[in-house]
């Protein structure tokens, strides 16, 4: 990585920061400071805009660099991630998006609280939403630090720390000044940049092989040193049964977790109707699906053109496969084309991290202010003060994420993302589905299902080999691991559903028929929707 790459990449990134800060100022010029405006951007985005913003919220740097890198190193097994991340959107589209848009105002807890005793339910759902958001946020911050160090060659600890601090500070500025409106536009800009960059690289890869996919795949297989095994599952997850079960657990967490991610749910409130929410999900499925299809081409392209050995030499987990591929496609190191493409890929990766981080911070500040603060304080504050709380919460969460990001900088990013999905699927999805579809669901069931998913998920991780008892663990020196799997999903997701069921059938009070009727009618028709 020469100085030219770094200068150009830094220049492009500065342009992106300048443009996004400009957007933040521009869209907040006539800001009214209402909660509607801050959390939901006035609810007047079009399905197309929201579709791009959802895609921009969802396609993280872990997808762009991580999945292509995994494919470049392990071939087919990397593809399993792409499939899980995409199929998850069917759960969102069919079961969640429209109903949540109709029932809620700003957060996940709104939907549940609509038919339950408000205070305990809000505290439970708010807590789990903040937990999921912080985990996801830390993963992105850690990713940002190592990515910048990697791409700009500044491998010193100081460079990584300052990157994490810089990303955190920028995100607090975007969110607390611009709210949902600025965040949405940043995500749209990022989604367009990411799609354009990915399309350009994919076309260049296919041109290199004259459109011959068969040739691309066989070159990748030959160069990998694994032969045809490279194109079949098993290289990464085909070991003992523990690792296979671990993968199944991750697969379930991926497919069920997306529908419980607070920053994804909050995006549905930015459009005026449930129909618009549905159409935005259709747009985003189109964008996300084509994006993941292209990352597969990029991954095998990197394996064929760069070779897994060289990718591994640059970064052991494969995160630099796409930047290296860009360098090669542009004409190799030292050429103008290579320098430009490399710088573009680096800048797109930065933009990706910033946009995702801003979306999560906004969603978690909404949970803190709208769910936790308003329930715990028990005082009927004016709307304006709730927005003030949310702004402060964004700054506090930003500071916390910076701190945790610095502490956890050696943790594996993919693990943190997988954990966030597992917690979302265990704590948030059961309560959401029960509230929307189960007539007999009660307050106790709702509270139990949140904690019954959240506590086992977090506990199983603490006693997993990720934290202790293995050489790569967080605390390699000690061994208190009891649970063999890295991802808790396969146990904790059923526990979340089970706890909700037990809590409901043991409830002393009967379900509130009238409020269930209200939830159901509002969910399916949109009557009285905010």
């Amino acid at each position, binding site marked *: 990585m020469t100085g030219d790459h770094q200068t150009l990449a830094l220049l492009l990134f500065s342009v992106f920061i300048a443009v996004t800060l400009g957007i933040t100022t521009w869209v907040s010029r006539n800001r009214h400071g209402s909660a*509607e405006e801050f959390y*939901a951007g*006035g*609810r007047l985005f079009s399905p197309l805009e929201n579709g791009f913003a959802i895609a921009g919220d969802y396609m993280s740097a872990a997808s762009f660099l991580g999945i292509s890198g995994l494919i470049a190193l392990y071939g*087919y*097994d990397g*593809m*399993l991630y*792409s*499939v*899980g991340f*995409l*199929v998850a*959107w*069917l*759960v969102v589209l*069919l*079961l969640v998006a*429209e109903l949540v848009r109709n029932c809620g105002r700003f957060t996940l807890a709104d939907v549940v609280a609509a038919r339950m005793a408000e205070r305990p339910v809000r505290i439970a759902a708010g807590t789990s939403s903040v937990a999921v958001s912080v985990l996801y946020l830390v993963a992105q911050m850690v990713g940002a630090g190592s990515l910048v160090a990697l791409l700009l060659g500044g491998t010193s600890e100081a460079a990584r720390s300052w990157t994490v601090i810089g990303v955190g500070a920028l995100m607090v500025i975007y969110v607390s000044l611009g709210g949902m409106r600025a965040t949405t536009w940043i995500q749209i800009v990022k989604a367009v940049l990411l799609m354009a960059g990915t399309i350009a690289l994919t076309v260049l890869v296919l041109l290199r092989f004259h459109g011959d996919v*068969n040739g691309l*795949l*066989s070159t990748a*297989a030959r160069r990998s040193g694994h032969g*045809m*095994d490279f*194109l*079949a*599952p*098993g290289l990464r*997850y*085909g070991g003992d049964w523990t690792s*296979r*079960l671990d*993968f*199944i657990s991750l*697969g*379930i967490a991926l*497919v069920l977790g997306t529908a419980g991610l607070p920053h994804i749910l909050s995006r549905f409130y930015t459009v005026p109707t449930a*129909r618009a929410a*549905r*159409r935005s999900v259709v747009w985003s*499925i*189109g964008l996300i*699906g084509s994006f*993941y*299809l292209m990352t597969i081409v990029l991954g095998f392209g990197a394996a064929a053109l760069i070779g897994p050995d060289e990718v591994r030499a640059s970064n052991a987990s494969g995160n630099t496969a796409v930047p290296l591929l860009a360098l090669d496609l542009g004409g190799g190191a030292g050429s103008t084309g290579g320098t430009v493409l490399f710088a573009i890929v680096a800048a797109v990766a930065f933009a990706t991290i910033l946009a995702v981080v801003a979306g999560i911070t906004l969603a978690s500040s909404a949970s803190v202010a709208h769910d936790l603060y308003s329930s715990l304080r028990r005082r009927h504050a004016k709307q304006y003060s709730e927005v003030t709380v949310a702004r402060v919460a964004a700054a506090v969460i930003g500071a916390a994420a910076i701190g945790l990001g610095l502490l956890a900088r050696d943790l594996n990013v993919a693990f943190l993302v997988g954990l966030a999905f597992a917690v979302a699927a265990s704590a948030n999805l059961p309560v959401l589905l029960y509230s929307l579809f189960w007539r007999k669901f009660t307050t106790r069931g709702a509270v139990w299902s949140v904690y019954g998913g959240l506590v086992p998920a977090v506990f199983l991780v603490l006693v997993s080999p990720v934290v202790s008892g293995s050489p790569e663990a967080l605390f390699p020196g000690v061994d208190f691991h009891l649970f063999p799997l890295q991802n808790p999903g396969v146990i904790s997701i059923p526990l979340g559903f089970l706890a909700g069921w037990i809590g409901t059938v043991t409830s002393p009070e009967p379900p509130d*028929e*009238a409020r269930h*009727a*209200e939830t*159901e*009618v*509002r969910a*399916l*028709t*949109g*009557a*009285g*929707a*905010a």
Partner: protein
Amino acid sequence: MKQVDEQEGRGASAVPVDDPWDEATGSEWGERSGAEGAGDGHPDTVPEQRVHSAAEVYLEVQRSPAFQEVRSRYRRFVFPAALAFLLWYLAYVVAATAAPGFMARPVAGVVNVAMVAGLGQFLTTFLLTWAYARHARLRRDRAALELRWDTQEMTRGAGQR
């Protein structure tokens, strides 16, 4: 925003509620305009025994055949579809981890069963997305929208009493 929404809502429906439940879900906006003169947009057009409070309005709407029809159309589509794609995805993940030999079988050129299954997941996701959007647009949207205005009209009436 809420108020703007409702303003637009009143504009869009343009017609007060007459008797929403006896009209089948397929009724057109045009057919409704006949009731306009009689209705006057006053909540009195809703029969007396129907509306007492907002809670009863929702129970009433929930029990109405029109709503039951919308709900069963929705559920008859999404429950089987969700079950099918979850099983298909689970089968794919389990096959990829438990039966790599089968997944490695060549199909055409270097393309093997695993590649076909993986791309098949993408294809089924796109197809189901299209089918769901179409089903919702053609079979549910209009009926749901009518129920929405009717319900809002009734709850407004309940609020005024």
